[in-house]
């Protein structure tokens, strides 16, 4: 236990080196905090010691608190009890009478930076990996151990506000410019410099608690009021209904900075304790952190299959998806052959991939060396030139006949044990498998546009797909640095099926004469990035018509849906989507009302209440997801939540399509679903799984 932190004394300075033998990174666990507190008390009582340095024995300084402890906080009081020791320790350090200096190297994020902020000075190693920040907001949280109070008092409110609201870290050099660290030194001098500073007569009083200190930035000054008044709408406009952390941060900053530190800490603690025990934080942590980390590590990979290496790939079909897939494969170091009908098409494809690389470069995601290397790995090739491949990805037009020919030809070009994948969003994999020489080597890899940006890959097992093929495909997805969700075969798999239910519900309301603007604005308020009917125009009415045709086999989900009717009415009027006009007219200023709307979809007599619209959009997704779970299209609720987040940017604070049911409560969800079923169609009938959950008062996610 005592080995978490060791103490070495050097010339009257105690060096406390944090190096938890049981963990890869130093975490502010209860045990670690207790150990540190013991050391601090011993140092403060030791007459031979004039100051102390807190350093790390690991590549990184200290990470935040233990997320597993935190997500078990059910009430604000639980969170207060969990954080009390660290809050007390940090206050003890800054008021204990001996100067404390933090020696920072690698990541000092969240609770790690808060520890450093409670020291009287900070020294950082001049390394590219030195990274200081308060990223709590990305977990649906806020700093809870003084971060919102000490950082703005140290570097000013104006600089601190974006760091805390956006969660973006800064480098050592930036930290020096901001005044967040006092010195930046070469790594080998880090400890010496920190010791020297601790022994230099550094006053053991924080500058904001010295009598002469004048607040650098008073929230009640004209500039301060302006800062908050302008920030709030910008922040709020980005938030869905469940996203509560950013406003809590603004509250803690405003009310905390108006008062002294002690009061500010109390205000921060009150807000943190509420957030830490909120559905929003638990959802964000579960889906965005715990779940995605597990998926990234390909936890679903069949055990006992050797890790597969990939060197040579071919992508057949040089359209939007094919080019994005080819780019991503090349960016992961594979040699990629790009195949299409003729040289013209492959030439256009190569040019399109060049444009993707250009965008990635402009956005700073790659440098010119990487770009040149990626493009050099890419070769246009005719179909007959394919040979000796580790993987072929088929990405031609979504038409079974077109895919059949390609798959048959591609199967022959593989190395033994090579992998064939179809990028289809709707066609059953088991049926496509018939066209492959070895169906066991075949599966679906459903990528999402823009491929180079969207992390999700739906990995679809056909009836004959082997365990080895699934394992190999997951190895490939990991190599692409993407996040796989393994799904079973079936109409629309998981993603297209649930998006279909959502879009279908919106189109049904359109057919009923509900104002499309209201439908979309209600979806935006829920937290969706774009309204479903606006999205329908972007997807295109003909494409949607095709997708709904392929989803028709899902009879339970289609019961009472009027999507086809709405799509047909649009199609009959030549309303095809964004370019030619669809549900909306589209111009440089965004969407505008289509004058023909009322003729195509006569308005309802009485407006549908917004809460009903909200429920129909949200419940349609969750209910369809539960049906997919029952049909074993997905293996676990968390997989569905991850797919929802990554596939269609479902609001993270709601957790996902399953977590949403938990937040509503299964009992209420079932009762309200039955109301919707009675009013709008049997597709809202709660599936048996939901009814059972409600009867037992259980949740999809216990934690």
């Amino acid at each position, binding site marked *: 236990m005592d080995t978490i932190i060791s103490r070495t004394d050097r010339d009257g300075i105690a060096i406390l080196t944090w190096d938890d033998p049981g963990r890869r990174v130093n975490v502010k666990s209860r045990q670690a905090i207790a150990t540190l507190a013991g050391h601090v008390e011993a140092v403060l009582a030791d007459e031979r010691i004039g100051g102390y340095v807190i350093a790390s024995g690991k590549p990184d300084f200290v990470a935040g608190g233990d997320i597993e402890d935190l997500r078990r906080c059910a009430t604000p009081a639980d969170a207060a009890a969990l954080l009390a020791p660290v809050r007390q320790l940090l206050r003890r350090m800054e008021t204990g009478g001996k100067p404390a200096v933090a020696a920072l190297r690698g990541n000092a994020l969240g609770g790690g930076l808060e520890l450093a902020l409670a020291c009287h000075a900070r020294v950082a190693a001049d390394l590219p990996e030195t990274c200081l920040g308060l990223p709590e907001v990305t977990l649906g949280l806020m700093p809870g151990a003084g971060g919102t109070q000490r950082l703005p008092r140290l570097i000013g409110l104006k600089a601190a506000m974006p760091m805390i609201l956006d969660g973006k870290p800064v480098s050592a050099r930036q930290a020096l410019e901001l005044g967040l660290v006092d010195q930046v030194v070469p790594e080998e001098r880090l400890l010496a410099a920190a010791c020297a500073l601790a022994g230099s007569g550094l006053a053991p009083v924080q500058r904001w608690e010295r009598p002469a200190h004048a607040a650098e930035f008073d929230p*009640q000054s004209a500039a301060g009021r302006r800062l908050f008044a302008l920030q709030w*709408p910008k922040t709020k*406009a980005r938030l869905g209904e469940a996203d509560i952390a950013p406003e809590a941060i603004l509250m803690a900053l405003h009310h905390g900075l108006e008062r002294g530190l002690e009061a500010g800490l109390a205000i921060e603690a009150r807000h943190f304790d509420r957030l830490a025990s909120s559905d929003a934080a638990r959802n964000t942590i579960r889906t965005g952190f715990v779940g995605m980390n597990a998926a990234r590590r390909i936890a679903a990979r069949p055990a006992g299959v050797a890790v597969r290496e990939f060197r040579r790939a071919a992508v057949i079909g040089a359209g939007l998806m094919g080019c994005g897939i080819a780019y991503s494969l090349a960016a992961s170091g594979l040699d990629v052959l790009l195949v299409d009908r003729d040289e013209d098409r492959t030439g256009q494809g190569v040019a399109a991939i060049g444009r993707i690389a250009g965008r990635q470069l402009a956005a700073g995601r790659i440098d010119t060396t990487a770009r040149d290397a990626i493009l050099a790995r890419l070769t246009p090739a005719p179909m007959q030139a394919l040979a000796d491949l580790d993987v072929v990805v088929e990405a031609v037009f979504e038409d079974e006949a077109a895919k059949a020919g390609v798959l048959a030809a591609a199967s022959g070009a593989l190395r033994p044990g090579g992998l064939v994948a179809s990028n289809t969003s709707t066609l059953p994999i088991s049926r496509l498998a018939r066209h492959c020489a070895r169906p066991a080597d075949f599966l679906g890899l459903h990528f999402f546009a823009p491929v180079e940006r969207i992390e999700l890959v739906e990995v679809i097992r056909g009836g004959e797909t082997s365990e080895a093929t699934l394992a190999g495909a997951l190895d490939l997805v990991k190599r692409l640095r993407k996040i796989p969700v393994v799904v079973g075969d079936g109409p629309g798999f998981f993603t297209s099926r649930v998006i279909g239910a959502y879009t279908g519900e919106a189109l049904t309301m359109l057919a009923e004469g509900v104002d499309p*603007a209201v439908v979309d*604005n209600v979806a935006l308020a829920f937290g969706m990035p774009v309204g479903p009917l606006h999205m329908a125009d972007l997807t295109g009415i003909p494409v949607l018509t095709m997708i709904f045709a392929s989803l028709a086999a899902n009879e339970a989900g289609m019961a009472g849906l009027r999507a086809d009717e709405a799509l047909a009415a649009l199609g009959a009027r030549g309303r095809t989507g964004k370019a030619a006009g669809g549900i909306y007219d589209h111009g440089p*200023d965004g*969407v505008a*009302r289509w004058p023909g709307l009322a003729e195509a979809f006569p308005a309802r007599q009485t407006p549908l209440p917004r809460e009903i619209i909200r429920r129909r959009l949200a419940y349609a997704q969750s209910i369809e997801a539960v049906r997919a779970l029952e049909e074993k299209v997905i293996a676990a609720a968390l997989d569905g939540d991850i797919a929802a987040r990554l596939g269609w940017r479902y609001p993270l604070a709601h957790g996902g399509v399953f977590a949403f049911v938990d937040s509503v409560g299964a009992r209420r969800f079932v009762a309200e679903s039955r109301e919707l079923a009675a009013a709008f169609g049997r597709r809202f009938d709660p599936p048996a799984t939901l009814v059972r959950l409600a009867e037992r008062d259980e949740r999809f996610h216990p934690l």
Partner: protein
Amino acid sequence: MSAAFIVDAVRTPRGRGRPDGGLHTLSPIDLGATVLRALVGRTGIDAAAVEDCIFGCAEAVNDQGANVARSSWLHAGLPEDVPGMVVSRFCGSGLDAVNAAAAKVMAGQADMIVAGGVEMLSLVPMLGTGGPTGSDAWFNATSWLTPQGVAADLIATVNGFARADVDAFAAESQARAAAAVKDGRHSGSIVPVHDFNGDLLLAGDEHPRPGTTVESLASLRPAFAEAGMKGGFDALLKRRYPELLHIEHVHHAGNSSGIVDGAAALLIVSEAALQRNGLTPRARISAFAQAGVDPSIMLIGPDEAARRCLARTGRGYDDIDLFEINEAFAAVVLDFMRRSGVGRDRINVSGGAIAYGHPVGATGAMLVGTLVDDLGRLGARRGMVSMCVGLGMAVATMLEAV
């Protein structure tokens, strides 16, 4: 219940609310003292007999803080026997000061009150007193924080008022103000402002732009488009008004109320005080009311406040000859017209704040004075002042000729 009579109503000219404005070098208590001295002098009352001095001031801070009513009274050299108090309901403060004075008289708890208001926007800007609005994130969410100009644009959007509509209203306001100034309709109520050396600083309203046309307004850029679109307010308003795809930003400096400095004061007395002091009343305050409405669209309350006021007297809109609906923004008055069915011919017959400017906490008292003048001039029987107020409020007062 006693009746409350208006004996006299005076105001300063409105100076531009900028560093080059005619009143900017004065203190708020200079403006307050100017109208108080004029009122006492013109009515010939024994100032010590006044029982209270109630001023409206929206932003009571700095030099207009700490009870600018009592301060102005003392600064005017008037008897120390008279206390003062300040009321604040943002833009309605001056009208609320009049109503509070009338209420004391009508309740039989006072016979002689001075009511009025002071605001120097050149010195203390809107929201200068702070408050949770803007800075408190939770309160912003609760109250659907919306800048007033964006709220006015929202009113125009939901009503379908086009830029041409609001600009036409503004041009008409300027034309009516120009005619009123040319005729000297209110010159008897305007008190020229001098400095302590006796030099004249301002004799007439500084803000009107006679000759304004729809064409000349067309070149002005929307003032609230950036706050609405880039600032995030439009996106948030679509959550409150989800039937909207966009907010049409139609308001600008030329069809919004002008930013000015000014002060006003009225003498409000009981019937007993009229007789005791031999005073001649100019009008009677017959009713007043206030209302709260959706704080995001904020400025649609004048109709509701007016209806509540009418309901107190059992009267309807048809019984009112003249209306002063504060021209905070052109769309506010157009919205009132649509809700009330009252035609433009009865509203703001001498122009309004788009031409003259809106010295926030003083405006209500000024509008009462304007209405008293016009009731007399036109031989009308009844008039109504109604004003929209921030955070979704409104206040109204009904006057009758005597």
